[in-house]
C-alpha cells in the first residue's frame, strides 16, 4: 500500500444501451481497489450494471481560460447547428 491514495473518477452505466455517466470521484490505492470502492460508494441502491474508474490524473481537461479560443468562434457559424431543420413527425429531439 502506498502512502498517498490516488483520486479516481467513477462512471456508471445505469442500464444496457445507455452511456456511462460520471457520478463522482473517490480515493483508492489502485484501480482495482477503486472499482471495489465505487461499488460500495456509488451502487448500493442498484444504480448500475457496469462501472468504469479512471485515474483523475489521466484526464486532460479544458480550462476555463480556454473558453474564448475554444468555443466563441463556433457562435458565428449557425450553419453548423441543426437548429434550422424542421423535425419530422415523431422525432422529439435531434
Amino acid at each position, binding site marked *: *500500500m502506498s502512502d498517498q*491514495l490516488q483520486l479516481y473518477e467513477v462512471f456508471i452505466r445505469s442500464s444496457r444501451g445507455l452511456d456511462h455517466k460520471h457520478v463522482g470521484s*473517490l*480515493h*483508492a*490505492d489502485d484501480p*482495482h*481497489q477503486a472499482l*471495489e*470502492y465505487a461499488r*460500495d*460508494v456509488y451502487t*448500493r441502491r442498484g444504480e448500475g450494471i457496469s462501472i468504469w474508474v479512471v485515474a483523475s490524473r489521466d484526464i486532460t481537461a479544458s480550462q476555463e481560460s480556454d473558453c474564448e479560443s475554444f468555443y466563441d468562434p463556433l457562435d458565428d457559424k449557425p450553419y453548423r447547428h441543426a437548429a434550422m431543420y424542421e423535425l419530422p413527425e415523431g422525432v422529439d429531439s435531434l
Partner: protein
Amino acid sequence: MKLNDPLTRYVVRLGDDALIMGHRLSEWMSRAPFLEEDIALSNVALDFVGRARLFYQYAAELMGGEVTEDTFAYQRDVRDFTNLLLCELPRGDFAFTLCRQFLYDAFSLPFTQALCHSTDPQLAAIAAKAEKESRYHLRRSSDWMLRLGDGTQESHERCQNALEQLWIYTDEMFECDDLVNDLVVAGVAVNTSSLRSTWLETVTETLRTATLAVPESQGGVTGGRVGIHTDDLGFILAEMQFMQRAYPGLQW
C-alpha cells in the same frame, strides 16, 4: 430464555454469529482510516446485521407466540448468546479487524455454500443470499491481507500480531457438538469439521502471497456455543441492549 428445539438453537447460533460480527464492524463507522473504507466497512456490517435478522426472524417463526427477532437481539443475556468467540473479540486496530474478517470470511464462504444444500428450505434460502455477500466479503478481506501484509513494515507487523492473537479462536468454527451432528445427519446443518481443509488452504495461500506466516499455535479456545464468553461480549450487549432494557418495548 430457554431454547429446546435443536433447529431453533442452530438457527439462533447462526444469527448470533452474524449479529455480533456485524456489531463489531459497525463500531468502525466514522472511525475507519478513510471515507471510502468507512463506507465499505459499514456495508459489510450491514450485510451481517441483515443476515442476523433473517436467522432471528426464522427462529421467531419456529418459536411462535410473542417472540420476535428483537427478542433474540435485545432480551437475552450473555449466557444465552451462542456466537463464536472469534466474533466478539474487541475490534482492535484496523489490521486486527481485517484479519478477523479474513479468517471468518474464508470460513463463511464454504459454510454458506454448503448451507445452500440444507434440507431445510428456509435455511437454504438464507444461505443463498448470504453466499453472494460472503463471496464479496472474502474478496475484500483477502485484498486487504495482501495490502497490509505486503505493505509497510508496520502494517506487516500489525497483521502478523493480529493473526497470532486470533489463531486460537479459529478452532471453534470447525467444532461440531451433538446438536450440530444430529442436524447434519438430518441434512439440515453443515458439518463444519469437513470445511477445515478448504479453509486452511484458502488461508495458507492468501497469507503466503501476503508474505505473512501461518501461526503455529495449537489448541483452540472454545465455549461460545454453550454460552461461555469472554468479558467483551457483556460490554457489547450493555451498549446494544441499553435502550430496550431501560424502556422495554420501546419503538421509534
